[in-house]
Every structure is written in C-alpha cells, then in structure tokens.
C-alpha cells in the first residue's frame, strides 16, 4: 500500500499535464483527500484500488496497465471542479468523483463536458447519473430510495409492522431520498399506516421536542423510519432510546457499521440495509475474503458497507471496457447500458439508457441486537421504483 501511495503521489504533479496516449489507461480520482468527505471517499477509493490492482496483476485491461491520477477536492465544490479538470488534463480516461452528489457533481460535470465517463464513488441520489450530470455519468451505489422502500417492505412482510412513524432529518438529499422511497412503498402495503411524522436537523443539539411528539401517540408505533445520517443519527437514536421508546428503528445504509455502537450500549431492534456485510457473516464467502484483502491493503477492517461500491465501480467499468475493446466513451457507455443483472461481489447491477443507477437491488438486512450487529435476512423490493417517482 505504501508503495502504491508513493506512486500515486508521483503521478499527482498537477503542473505537468500528461497527454493521453494509447499505451496507458488512466483512471482519474477527483475525490476528497482532506476535509469532511475524506472519511467517506477514502475507504471506497481504497476498495477501487484493490480491484485495479487485481486487474493489473492479472495482466491489465486490454493488455495495458491501469494507471491512477489523483486530485484533491478538499471537500469544496469550487475545488471539486478544479480537481476534475486536473485529472482530465492529466489524461484520465475515466473520472471517479466524490461520494456525495453535491460534492462530486462539479468534477463530474467537468468530465461530462470533456466527453468522459464519470463514476460517483457511492452517491445515492438519482441525480448522480444521467439526470443530474449527463449521459456519460454513473453511480456505483444504490439509490437511497431503494433503502427506504426495502426497509418498509421487509419490516411489513417479515416483522409484521403495521404502524409506521417517519422521522426525517432535512439536512441532506440522501436523507430525503430514504424517506421518499419509504413514502413510495408504504401505500402499496395493505393496512400499513403512517401514524405520524416529524422533521429535525442533523445538527440539532437536542431532538427532545420531536421525541415528545412520538411519545404523545396513543401507542408506540411498530416501526420508526429514521431518515438520517451521521453524525446526527447516533444522537437521534440515542435520544430515542433514552426516552424509553422501544419501537423497531429502520434506517438507510448510512448508519451501517459497528464503530458507533458503543455510544448506545445494548442497542436492540435496530435494522439497516447493506450491500455486503462487514461483520464477517456475509452469505457470500468471497465478500469475507475481500474484507481480508482490504485489511491487508489498508491495515483496517472495512468500517461500513460504503467501501464496497468502489470495488463494484471498477469491476463493472473494466468489464464494459473489456467488452467494448476500447476506453472510448460512447462504446463504454453502450456496454454499461447493456448490463442487466450483471453479477458482482455485492449483488447484481443493472444500467439502462434511462437510469445509470440501481432502482432495485438485493439488500442484506443487518439487525443489531443487544449491541451486536449481524445479517438476519436478505431482501429485494418486489418491483423497481419507477424513474418518474424518483424524479418527483
């Protein structure tokens, strides 16, 4: 890993733009190496590097070694645009951009206007793709709405939840996406009802008023759909449980990971959808093998499921390049759009000319019981969420 980093650093010299030539395939990472997004971009990027190394070790892509160039977005939009332009100047054939749509899109737009394929590391908004960037942009993750819909349908079917409470943190689009998917699914579930809803802000020091509203319900809801993300999520969960509310809590993937569980000791009845398990109990043994490989490369276990999309990204892109026989944008995009249920380590992936994102996906359900998370089930929503509903 260290040698890899040195190699990366050496290729990062922004002042000497290299010209693209046919002997090299260059992947440009315009991601956050510093600032807030770094904690989200780096793990997925490490996973992407693992897949790149695997491909290079196996003889490369189209017989060429994949090279990497980096530019730091500093978790800043204006810097993001610059970073995108830098990696393009450095000869990137494909541009990888920051995990979050808001922070990744300036670089993706730069790639789009240069006619290059761009991939969001793990953005979960419908905009991270055709709708928000252009026809050459993709996301490696699954839509947030699918997470909300998955949790609603699964809790209804497997846990017989009938009364739902919806608590939305209006801080980000990701949070709203989860609740949008939940809203789409709920009316399709016979005799399931929404008994109340409320909003809060991630940075709120206390959500006591919101909790009081839940407690004033005639009876505790079966499930609380909590649409939020870190860091406010921990605070909200802790305060809900501290107030003595024991309903099951449904979440998006953003709260996956055991690193924060010590904050809410003995947390139970808590459910998260994940693309793969970091807890060593994934039904697919290859995922556990990947986790070991990740540990070798980075020195630590994956801390959340958001490591995995980085691996999937290089995987599907490399397959498309291989099939197209070139890195030329239109050919690669055409091959990607042909993928339907393409198997990957972390579930099948589908891209169409209408949507470059997953509007239906297999999710593992992780339950945290007495402070111990573990995979308890697997669920795929009964039908994909229509693009029209996602765009509303």
């Amino acid at each position, binding site marked *: 890993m260290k040698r890899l980093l040195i190699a990366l650093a050496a290729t990062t010299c922004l002042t000497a733009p290299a010209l693209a030539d046919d002997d090299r395939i260059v992947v440009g990472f315009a991601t956050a190496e*510093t*600032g*807030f*997004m*770094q*904690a*989200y971009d780096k793990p997925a990027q490490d996973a992407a590097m693992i897949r790149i190394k695997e491909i290079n070790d196996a003889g490369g892509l189209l017989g060429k070694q994949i090279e990497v160039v980096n530019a730091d977005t500093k*978790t800043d939009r204006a810097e993001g645009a610059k970073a995108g332009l830098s990696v393009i100047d450095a000869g990137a054939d494909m541009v990888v951009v920051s995990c979050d749509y808001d922070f990744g899109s300036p670089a993706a737009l730069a790639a789009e206007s240069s006619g290059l394929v761009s991939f969001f590391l793990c953005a979960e908004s419908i905009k991270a793709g055709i709708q928000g960037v252009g026809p050459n942009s993709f996301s490696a993750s699954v839509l947030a709405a699918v997470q909300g819909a998955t949790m609603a349908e699964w809790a209804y079917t497997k846990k017989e939840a009938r009364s739902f409470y919806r608590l939305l943190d*209006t801080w980000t689009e990701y949070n709203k996406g989860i609740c949008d998917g939940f809203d789409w699914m709920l009316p399709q579930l016979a005799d399931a009802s929404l008994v109340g*809803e*409320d*909003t809060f*802000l991630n*940075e*709120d*020091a*206390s959500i*006591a*008023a*919101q909790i*009081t*509203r839940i*407690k*004033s319900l005639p009876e505790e809801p079966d499930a609380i759909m909590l649409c939020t993300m*870190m*860091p406010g999520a*921990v*605070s909200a969960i*802790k*305060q809900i*449980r*501290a*107030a*003595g509310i024991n309903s099951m809590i449904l979440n998006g993937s953003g709260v996956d*990971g*055991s*690193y*924060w*569980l*010590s*904050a*809410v*000791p003995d947390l139970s009845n808590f459910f998260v959808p994940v693309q793969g398990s970091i807890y060593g109990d994934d039904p697919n043994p290859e995922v556990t093998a990947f986790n070991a490989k990740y540990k070798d490369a980075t020195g*630590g276990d994956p*801390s*959340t499921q958001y490591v995995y999309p980085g691996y999937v990204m290089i995987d599907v892109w490399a397959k498309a390049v291989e099939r197209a026989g070139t890195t030329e944008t239109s050919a690669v995009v055409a091959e990607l759009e042909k993928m339907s249920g393409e198997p990957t380590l972390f579930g099948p992936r589908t891209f169409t000319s209408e949507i470059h994102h997953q509007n239906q996906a297999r999710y593992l359900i992780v339950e945290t019981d007495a402070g111990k998370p573990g995979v308890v089930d697997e669920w795929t929503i009964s039908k994909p969420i229509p693009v029209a509903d996602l765009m509303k």
Partner: protein
Amino acid sequence: MGSLLQIVFDALSLGSLYALGALGIALIFGVMRLVNFAHGDVIAACVFALLWPSVDAVAIVFAGNLPWFLLIPFVLAVGAGLSVLSELVVFRRFRRANPATMMIASFGLGFVIRYFLLMLFSSRPKSISLLPTLSQPVEILGARIPLLQLITILVTVAVLFGLTAFLRRTRFGLEMRAAAENFTMARMLGVRANRVIMGAFALSGALAAAIALILGSQTGTANIMMGANVMLMAFIATVIGGMGSLAGAVLAGFLLGTVATVMQVILPPDARAFRDAFVYGAVILVLIFRPQGLLSARGTKERV
C-alpha cells in the same frame, strides 16, 4: 399534563445548553469586547480530548474511560486550559485591536483548532459512551424524562448558582464584574488586567467543557462540528440578552431554547422545516425593538 411537562423539560434542557454557551461568550465579551468564534471549536476539542488521536472509524477511547469523578475535572481542565492558551498565544496581542479584527482573529483560531482536530481524528464522527448511566429514562409527575435531560437542567442551575456565588462573594468575582463593566477604570483601581482576562477565559473554557460533557453524553458522538450550532445560538443569545450582561445572556439562552421547542411543537409539519427561519426572524424582531438587548448592561460602552 404529562406532555406539557415534557415540553417544559424539553425547552429547559435545550435552553440550558444555549444559556451555558451564551455565558461562556458573554464572560469574554465582557472583559475584552471579543466575540469569540473559537468557542464552538473549544467545545469540540473538549470532547475529542477523551479520545486518542486516530483517523480510524473506531474511536480509541483514552481519557473517556476514567471514572466520572476524574473524568469531569479532566474535561473541565482541558476546556479551561485550551481557552487560557488561546488567550496567551493569540488574544493577548489583540488587546488594542478593534472588535472586528479580534472577531476575525478568533474565527481564524477556530479554523485552526477545527482543522487540527480534523487532521488528528478525520471528519468521521466518533462514538463514545460517555457517562452511559445517564441514558435511562426517569418518571416525574407522569412524564418520562430522560435522566440526562434532568441532569442537564440541574447542572446548569448548579453552574449558574455557583458562578453567581463566585462573582458575588469572592474578590476575584468582584474584580471580574468591575472589569466587565469598565475595564479601564478597573485597571486604574489596580485590578490586574491579565489575571482577570485569564480568569474569564478559564471560566469560559470550563463552561465550554460542561457543554461538551452534556453534548457528548446526549449524542454519544464526538464530531468536529458539534460545537458550531450551540455556539451560533449562544452567540445570538448573548446579543439578545444585551452584550456583556451575564444575566441577560442566560435569560436569552433559555428564551431561545423555549422558542425553538415551542415552534417545533406548534408549527404544522410542512412548516416545521422552516423552524429556524422563524427563530431567526424573531431574533431580528427583538433587535429592532430592543437593539441594546433585553437586559443591556448598564455602563457598557459598545465599541463596534
């Protein structure tokens, strides 16, 4: 009845946080006309002091494992120490600067602290189980109140009483109150400027640490931005209360907490997201009708 009581507790506990924050800002403003934007970052730094620097997702708890009777003094000392250090290294050299320059300098300092924490700990929020026994609910007059909420209110009341006693009954408190009102005059009476200012910074830092302990136990996370929201509200409370007036700052802190809680309760769901817009609108209204604040400190000359 039960739910009304609950709302009262919600408002009081949120107000407590704002009041403690406002007090920390007003203390320093009083003695040196500095609006200290680094206060929020001192709060965050106090929480991170419990952890060992590492950029891994899992927090390496270090001082956080101390028993409570050591943990609390430790955090208070960190807050006070960091705050005094900022005065020694930075603010001491701005005594003669105008308040705008000082304000920007304090922002610069906050920036440095924040990015230092970011470098050591990364932006990923770390979870810590601080004083976990406080997360139990308790039953009071038919309302189930989280124990921590109760403790927050009690601690705030205790801090307020303690601080009042300190300011009223001790010589240092007397000097500090005199200095807060007219710094130059106090110096002409032999009050040592550096000592009083350092004292104010130490107290303010300890108050930041108290907020850090409450926020840490309440949210279970250490996050580099965690002080920002409290600080902004506290900052506003200080002004509404009448800059330099400690009683006003506390009063306005509770008022803001109450307004925010009540808004959350009475606004219809669609408007709830706009809660903060209403709160800030109310702030502007208060300032229009009482530009000097609710309780303006008598004799405090404003220099901006």
